[in-house]
């Protein structure tokens, strides 16, 4: 199992050419499907995205992209927001669907084979990723199962 925090800064290489393409700056998440949609490589204007399907492997030492051609610039506002770090889950305010702040997302774990999110770490609590209802620039919204007991 891998985590967002641990994989930040990891080298990204092309499997076909063994060329180093950059390093992981952010992981763009599809909140509805609760999985990683794309890996953001590099920062600022030069940042590029590679879709999860285009990875041959997400390993502990490097992220392997099938081919350098799989890298592309952000295609819409949401992807641009991702490259600017606005959608980053680590450090994001966690809000329940009832409108109560439940804390800050300290980290997120995921399955390296499928990209599926496994757990959301909020302080010393581990919440199942199934609780994630949506996320964006302001907050990650969690269903009421995540609300701490009164």
């Amino acid at each position, binding site marked *: 199992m891998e985590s967002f925090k641990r994989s930040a800064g990891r080298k990204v290489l092309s499997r076909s050419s063994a060329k180093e393409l950059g390093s992981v700056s952010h992981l763009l998440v599809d909140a509805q499907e609760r999985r990683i949609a794309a890996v953001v490589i590099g920062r600022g204007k030069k940042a590029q995205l590679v879709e999860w399907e285009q990875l041959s492997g997400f390993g502990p030492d490097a992220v392997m992209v099938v081919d350098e051609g799989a890298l592309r610039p952000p295609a819409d506002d949401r992807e641009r927001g991702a490259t600017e770090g606005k959608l980053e889950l680590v450090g994001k305010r966690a*809000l329940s*669907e*009832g409108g109560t702040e439940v804390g800050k997302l300290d980290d997120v774990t995921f399955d390296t084979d499928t990209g599926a999110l496994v757990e959301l770490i909020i302080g010393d609590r581990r919440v199942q990723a199934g609780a994630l209802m*949506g996320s*964006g*620039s302001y907050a990650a*919204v969690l269903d009421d199962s995540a*609300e701490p007991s*009164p």
Partner: protein
Amino acid sequence: MRLLMTASQIRGLPVVTVRGGEDVAEVRDVIFSPEAGRLLGVTLNKRGFLAGRSRDVLPAEAIHAIGQDAVMVLDALSLVAPEDAPDDVAHPAVERNVIGDDVLTEGGLSLGKVTDLVLLVGSSGEVVGYQIEKPGGGRGYIPLPAQLAVSGAALVVPNITEEFVKDDLVGLGATVDEFRARLGLS
């Protein structure tokens, strides 16, 4: 989760989309029905320090939940243009702002002035009572349905309301049922 909040606590809260995780607006005015005892909707400001008013409004039906830290909506489509919203919310009667209203019993005794509205929030907004400043100073709470009539200047309440002025929200919450029973409304 249901909790008691005042209208002033709700004002200024961000309006956040559940699916998008975006703060799409913030709460400006709170509009309620005194006879139905419920929240009808809120008007909005845009987000941001120098941002101005928003034309869009948020009717109560479109609110997913109200909590301590945010008003939740499913998505940005919940914010509607005035022409698509109920008239009370789209064109609020600003002269009927109850803040500062004198609270007068039928017998002509002033219980104080309205300083806030108290609501039980969760997935709906039920108005529970009014927060008042008592004539000698100090805060009080009176339960709804409190008023026989309301205008922008005064609230007229049944005489027995005088016995139901509470000092805190807990007291108010506990007293509402008894008050309604006394008025023959339960």
